[in-house]
């Protein structure tokens, strides 16, 4: 009786031990968008082509920074000169047929209104981007704001 019990216990112990270990140490299948690229390497960027100039694109929600509907190849924004403001400044926009920069860009961080854009809006491409036909990296179910859908 005693031996049968110990045998049974031993069987249980031996049988479950590897099972438990496998449960604990099973590798977690997790992969980021980087893929298997090690941290000290960079993924090769895909080749994107600047799209042809076109009319301003429809917006998906009212607070959206409008997309840039033209090529920006070679448009440098440096401490010396902001190429975007060469056409989008209020004093230039009419001549260039361009949209004037939004009035919201004239407010500094204390809410004070300035005579030209605030330095915090200097780097336009931080918010405004041109379009390419890049594949979405992850799926999403984003929908246009109701108010902007054609009625």
């Amino acid at each position, binding site marked *: 009786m005693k031996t049968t019990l110990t045998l049974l216990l031993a069987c249980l112990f031996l049988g479950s031990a590897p099972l438990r270990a496998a449960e604990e140490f099973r590798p977690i299948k997790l992969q980021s968008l980087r893929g298997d690229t090690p941290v000290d390497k960079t993924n090769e960027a895909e080749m994107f082509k600047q799209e*042809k100039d076109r009319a301003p694109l429809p917006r998906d929600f009212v607070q959206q920074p409008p997309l840039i509907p033209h090529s920006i*190849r*070679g448009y*440098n924004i440096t401490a010396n000169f902001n190429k975007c403001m060469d056409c989008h400044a209020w004093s230039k926009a009419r001549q260039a047929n361009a949209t004037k920069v939004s009035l919201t860009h004239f407010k500094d961080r204390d809410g004070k209104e300035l*005579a*030209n854009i605030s330095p915090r809006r*200097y780097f336009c491409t931080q918010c405004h981007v041109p379009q390419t036909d890049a594949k979405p990296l992850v799926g999403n179910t984003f929908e246009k704001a109701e108010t902007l859908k054609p009625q």
Partner: protein
Amino acid sequence: MSEQKDQPRSLWKRIAGGGSVALAIAFVAGIVVWGGFNTAMELSNREEFCIGCHEMKENVFVEYRNTIHYQNRTGVRATCPDCHVPKEWGPKLIRKIQASNELLHKALGSIDTPEKFNAKRLELAQHEWARMKKTDSHECRNCHNYDYMDYGEQGRRSSAMHQKGFGEGKTCIDCHKGIAHSLPPIEQDIGASKAGTAAEQAKPAS
């Protein structure tokens, strides 16, 4: 009578005799000098020469490498002399003579650090703008001819601005400043003032 006949003949003889040797020497020397001169002009008209000094290599060249005239779809390039040295013999010679002043400044080390170069940049750029304005952007037009621009192929903004601009008698450099290099400080009235560089003529017109 015979003496009268002799007079011109002896002159001719003299020319045909001793003179021809001198003439031949002068002729050959002329070719050598001319050839050497043109070779020097040609050698100093290559991109390798232009970026042979670090002043150009470390500043304007690196910037130019990111632009359309260095690398593009078709591989047709514009090199430094294509934009900066006239193709016609006279204006080219004048530009080369002016360049000896640049050699003087090379010796003086006027722009031998990026800081010194950037301090001088507005002035250097203004010289180029003035030169191109005066020649109706001749060097650009050596390759680009607006009579043959296909406005149907060009972008919306290009075709609209070109038709308007050329109608108003504008020239390439009026609108295309900074096409090959970073621009010098130009006052745009954003944030702190860029003291001393407000020159209205430096503002690229659109």
